[in-house]
């Protein structure tokens, strides 16, 4: 049996029946990494020694009958989440040698649950990108087709899950960075409601938009991961103090009584016909399962990208000011004046996309431009939030494509930042509104690339997303479909 190919719940069952152990499973994942990583490039750092130690401890815990569903499960982590004693680079040269002295809250929660941390995955530098082509340590390949992008910015996490180089992973989503690579790699990805999962220890890109979430092989695993990482955290002032339901309990409810909204603006010009066909096919399955379908409108959708590319860079320009070469990260040792050191260190350490967004954000916030750009974008954000409020008074879950097209060829859009930004048009509004969004596989293109379906729900209605996605997953023959590597 290929242990690396299993889901969390399948592996947990084997552990419970004592048919295998966390140590065997972890070793199987490292063997798989050895076998395929040269072709995929999903990881920046591996954590072999500590992972085997964690697996050994998890095995003992299970023997004592104390292990929960994540105990002994080998997971990977996007390299923007702090792991104590394990290098955390954010995909950037400026943090190439940074070893955090503390864990992010989500890592503490996973470790308390007995999970095994296999390593840190490739990502666009500081989570800025839609293709995972902006990583300072190389571009990972889409496991389904090596010359195609795996999507960004959590591309390494999505690729690692799709290639069975881990059992599940954690990513972060600022404008679609979990859902988009999940869609391109054929895995499940969830951006929870803003505030549902602590962001303490997540290296900040755009603080009002960033959210940590799981990438998994199926919807049940997604619910299990969400159970483990959700909850209030006093160390994060934006964390919401609200009880965490059992997300797995919601899966088995049927769809009778649920209304699916189809936002008409998500099916406009530029949508690839194969994507449209797959999404409509999935909608038919949801109808068969008993869901009602309603036509809804989100009229300000087309302004989301423009608002995002003011708000996110503005927040990034402030957040990334901390990378000055003083306390951590790369420092230019030649400069003999402080300001020169800042400039040289930052210029050597940051890549092109990060510099572009810092300058864009600094410009938008600078004197004389604040009202024209940042204030205007924040007002449009209000209109987008209001659109969702109206839509969710008519339906429970919105269904749409995740991205207008399947994955594109590596390098195809990298010369044109704006065209790359527009690929996030269908995912960005959820971040601006802080609502949860999920990507679940719904088809394959003729070229053999996965197509994802996006579900969005009101704040803290993750249960509805998981319930709808689980019902769809049961009716599509896609679970267990693997890339040939």
């Amino acid at each position, binding site marked *: 049996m290929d242990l690396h190919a299993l889901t969390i719940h399948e592996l947990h069952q084997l552990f419970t029946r004592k048919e295998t152990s966390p140590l065997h499973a972890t070793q199987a994942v490292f063997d798989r990494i050895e076998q395929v990583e040269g072709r995929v490039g999903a990881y920046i750092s591996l954590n072999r020694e500590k992972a085997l130690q964690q697996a050994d401890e998890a095995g003992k815990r299970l023997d004592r009958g104390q292990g929960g569903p994540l105990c002994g499960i080998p997971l990977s982590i996007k390299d923007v989440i702090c792991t104590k004693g394990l290098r955390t680079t954010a995909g950037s040269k400026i943090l190439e040698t940074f*070893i955090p*002295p503390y864990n992010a809250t989500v890592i503490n929660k996973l470790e308390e649950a007995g999970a095994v941390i296999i390593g840190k995955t490739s990502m666009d530098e500081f989570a800025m990108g839609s293709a995972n082509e902006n990583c300072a340590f190389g571009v990972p390949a889409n496991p389904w087709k090596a010359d195609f992008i795996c999507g960004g910015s959590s591309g390494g996490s999505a690729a690692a899950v799709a290639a069975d180089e881990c059992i599940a992973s954690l990513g972060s989503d600022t404008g679609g960075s979990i859902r988009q690579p999940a869609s391109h790699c054929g895995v499940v990805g969830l951006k929870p409601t803003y505030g549902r999962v602590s962001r303490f220890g997540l290296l900040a890109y755009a603080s*009002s938009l960033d959210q940590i979430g799981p990438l998994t092989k199926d919807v049940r695993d997604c619910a299990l991961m969400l159970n483990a990482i959700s909850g209030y955290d006093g160390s994060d002032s934006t964390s919401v103090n609200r009880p965490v339901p059992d997300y797995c309990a919601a899966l088995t409810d049927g769809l009778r009584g649920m209304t699916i909204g189809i936002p008409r603006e998500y099916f406009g010009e530029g949508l690839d016909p194969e994507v449209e066909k797959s999404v409509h096919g999935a909608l038919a399955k949801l109808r068969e399962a008993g869901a009602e379908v309603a036509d809804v409108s989100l009229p300000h959708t087309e302004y989301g990208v423009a*608002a995002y590319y003011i708000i996110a860079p503005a927040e990034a320009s402030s957040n990334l000011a901390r990378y000055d070469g003083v306390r951590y990260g790369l420092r230019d040792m030649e400069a003999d004046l402080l300001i020169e050191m800042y400039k040289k260190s930052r*210029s050597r350490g940051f890549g092109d996309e990060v510099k572009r967004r810092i300058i*864009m954000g600094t410009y938008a916030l600078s004197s004389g431009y604040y009202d024209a750009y940042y204030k*205007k974008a924040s*007002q449009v954000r209000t209109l987008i939030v209001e659109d969702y409020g109206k839509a969710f008074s008519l339906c429970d879950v919105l269904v749409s494509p995740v991205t207008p097209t399947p994955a594109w060829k590596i390098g195809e859009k990298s010369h044109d930042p*704006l065209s790359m930004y527009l690929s996030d048009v269908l995912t960005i509004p959820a971040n601006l509104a802080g609502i949860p969004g999920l990507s679940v596989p719904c088809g394959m293109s003729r070229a053999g690339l996965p197509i994802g379906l996006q579900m969005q729900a009101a704040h803290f209605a993750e249960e509805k997303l998981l319930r709808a996605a689980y019902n769809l997953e049961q009716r599509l023959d896609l679970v267990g479909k693997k890339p040939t590597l």
Partner: protein
Amino acid sequence: MNISKEEVAKVAHLARLDLSEQEVEAITGQLDRILGYVAKLNEIDTTDVTPTTHALAVHNAFRDDVVHPSLPRQEALANGPRQNGEAFVVPRVI
């Protein structure tokens, strides 16, 4: 033209970035195109719209004034590119 090379160079200085002539040239062209796209926001009348800076109501988080253990000095300094065992060392300011 939405942005000039001089403005990009000035903003780069404010952001503490040292850009080459070529980088200024490239970024100016790219930002010009992006700002041209962003101008579509002006199609919407937002006169009476309150800006949203956070999707959820966020309040100041006040903790009880209780002493907690802090990071030991050596751990705090461990990632410092230059330090003397007690503090980070930086080049002169003046």
